[in-house]
């Protein structure tokens, strides 16, 4: 019995603690806050932040991380932002991360703040599109990107040798520098028993980030760009002919193709792809480090990119300025991002240094090939236009619903109908065809 009461008491005390923790703390006396809250959807930037940024003494950094799948990250972030005005100083979001697919939603709102208001100035060395993406309709910039994400084709040298008779980047590039040629090589690869790509959606970004019109028109009608249609046509052909697998871009089935015994020739990705998606290629036992090369591929594009946005109401503006500078202007840190982390930095001076340095090469995967030079060429072609706030969930939804068509569970018409239903359900304000 005593034990019971003891447990009960413990529980009540526990409740008390929880209750206290929820009470708003008194606002910090100093001008700058003691708690720095960051919202993010994965650990990528957190790793760089902890390595290359020195947090001022006495400041605690809180990371609030929610997965971006199914829009969970955005939902949780929205909830917190809408509550920002009522939150205590230490509870307020100071900085949050946003991806290309939905950055506009936050940049065009009052929940983000002008970077010049706390003394940050964009440098000439930053890529133009990264600034444009972080600016609202009036050109007021609300944040910075710590990376630039030109994306390329990363191929298996040994497989290219078998399929094309060459593994030299120049010659491989010449063989796949347009979609017609790319598709033709896919047929050759198939004959030799290889896959051209390992996911039906592998080439999606190469098309979707070259769209000439946004997903939604001025009357809130859903519309398909020619690039999206072209991707669907290509994928139809690839699936029909067995040039690719029905796995999604993030599926284990795809990443397993990067082991040494994988049968896939090409992967599409930017610099962050190495660390994020290619861990299997770097497996000490079954990986194939050094068997990879990078080329520009059929169509220049970019994929993703992580922007750091300043949240309105932050009481840590000095720190914000400091962080922004560290990851854009600071050439020392940007160089370390290249050399230690295989990143492509948002700093043209650093990029030029490495692109023109014959002694630089990516040794962790590409056996010493200078990938920065390849990315630098691609980066010149990145345009920032035709984005909507809905891109993430529309891109994700289209891939999910079409995947069911490609793996044979529904016909194309049903897949499209399911996509329209999904859009209607996710965004009540978007008009979909015939729904």
């Amino acid at each position, binding site marked *: 019995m005593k034990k019971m009461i003891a447990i009960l008491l413990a529980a009540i005390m526990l409740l008390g603690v929880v209750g206290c923790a929820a009470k708003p703390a008194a606002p910090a006396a100093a001008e700058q806050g003691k708690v720095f809250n960051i919202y993010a959807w994965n650990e990528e930037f957190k790793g760089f932040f902890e390595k290359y940024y020195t947090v001022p003494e006495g400041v605690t950094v809180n990371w609030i991380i929610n997965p971006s799948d199914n829009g969970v990250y955005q*939902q949780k972030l929205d909830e917190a932002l809408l509550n920002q005005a009522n939150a205590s100083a230490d509870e307020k979001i100071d900085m949050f991360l946003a991806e290309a697919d939905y950055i506009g939603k936050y940049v065009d709102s009052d929940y983000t703040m002008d970077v010049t208001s706390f003394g940050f100035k964009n440098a000439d060395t930053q890529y133009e599109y990264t600034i444009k993406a972080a600016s609202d309709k009036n050109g007021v910039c609300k944040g910075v990107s710590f990376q630039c994400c030109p994306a390329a084709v990363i191929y298996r040298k040994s497989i290219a040798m078998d399929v094309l008779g060459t593994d030299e980047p120049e010659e491989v590039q010449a063989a796949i520098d347009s979609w017609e040629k790319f598709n033709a090589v896919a047929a050759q690869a198939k004959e030799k028993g290889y896959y051209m790509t390992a996911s039906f959606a592998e080439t999606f970004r190469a098309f979707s980030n070259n769209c000439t019109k946004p997903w939604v028109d001025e009357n809130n009608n859903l519309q398909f760009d020619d690039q999206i249609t072209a991707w669907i046509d290509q994928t139809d052909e690839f699936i029909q002919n067995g040039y690719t697998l029905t796995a999604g871009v993030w599926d284990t089935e795809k990443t397993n193709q990067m082991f040494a015994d994988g049968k896939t020739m090409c992967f599409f990705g930017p610099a962050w792809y190495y660390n994020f998606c290619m861990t299997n290629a770097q497996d000490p036992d079954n990986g194939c480090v050094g068997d990879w090369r990078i080329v520009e591929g059929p169509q220049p594009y970019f994929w993703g990119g992580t922007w750091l946005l300043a949240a309105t109401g932050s009481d840590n503006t000095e720190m914000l300025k400091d962080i922004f500078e560290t990851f854009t202007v600071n050439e020392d840190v940007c160089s370390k991002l290249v050399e230690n982390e295989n990143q492509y930095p948002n700093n043209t001076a650093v990029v030029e240094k490495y692109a023109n340095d014959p002694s630089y090469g990516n040794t962790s995967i590409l056996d010493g090939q200078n990938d920065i030079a390849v990315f630098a060429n691609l980066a010149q072609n990145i345009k920032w236009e035709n984005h909507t706030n809905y891109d993430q969930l529309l891109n994700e939804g289209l891939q999910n619903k079409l995947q069911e068509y490609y793996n044979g*569970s529904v016909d194309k018409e049903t897949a499209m109908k399911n996509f329209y239903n999904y859009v209607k359900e996710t965004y009540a304000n978007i008009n979909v065809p015939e729904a």
Partner: protein
Amino acid sequence: MNERTALQNAKRKTVSYAKWGYIFILPFFVVYLCFTLIPQFLTIYNSFFENYRDGLTQIGPNFVGLENYKALFTADSAGTVRILKYLANTMIMWFVGALPQFVIAMLLAIFFTSYRLNIKGQGFFKTVIYMPNLIMAAAFSMLFFTLFSRVGPIQMLLTKWGWIDASFDFFSHRVTVRGMIALMNFLMWFGNTTIVLMAGIMGIDQALFESATLDGANATQVFFRVTLPLLMPIFVYCLITALIGGIQMFDVPQVLTKGNGAPDELSRTLVMYLNGYLTTKNYGMAGAISVIIFIITGVLGGFVYRMLTAQYRDPGRQHRQRKGDVL
């Protein structure tokens, strides 16, 4: 003090202690009011409003009457009324799991209680079959996902044996996805049902079996003429509570299909539909779906209520009776 005055004292005290009854049940009702009843009314209230978010902009709440319900029951371009489709999915997946659940639970209950069979190791068997009931549904379905995925061990094993083609995908076929969900539900619940039905059988007066056997009834006759009719109330109770549990099906298909209800939304359940609107903050539609689910469970719950309260028409009666016995 003689016995009579003691009785009168006791009686008087029972009356004067009434306020303690209120005090003791107060926490329950306060908490129920705050955390369930008010939210319940709020949910119903929400269903009559247009109320959602466009990005960071709040739209509504605007009163729209029954528009949300109308939207729920409007067919899409292919003529499908989605909420009915999801209801059908839920019921089919429940049924496919519940049918073997009840048949096998009934068989096991009979095996375990049979003196003739005299099954050894009952403790072990019961422990094992009940175990899946306690496993976190999210973890269980995550486990199924990894085991049955295209690169998982089950796929590899069956491919090696030549039972399935290497390109077979458990997650792209209606039958296999629903089958996996039903299998999980079956595994999670048949042990529980077995134990409950066993308790029901053991609660039947042994004399009835004996006299039936003496009258020359064989085992089958005893089962159908004696066991089953007497077990019927508890069996129906189990069935309806299982059905209500089935309508709430969420964790397993949600985690297994990553919320997509693939393929072709044929494994999407009612609560997954509700969850979709809840997470996108479309409170109007979420409210309307909640009300529909509420009505369905309300009707089913009505049966359970009637069964449970049949012997409880007057909760004070037994108390008084027992008191009477004592005196």
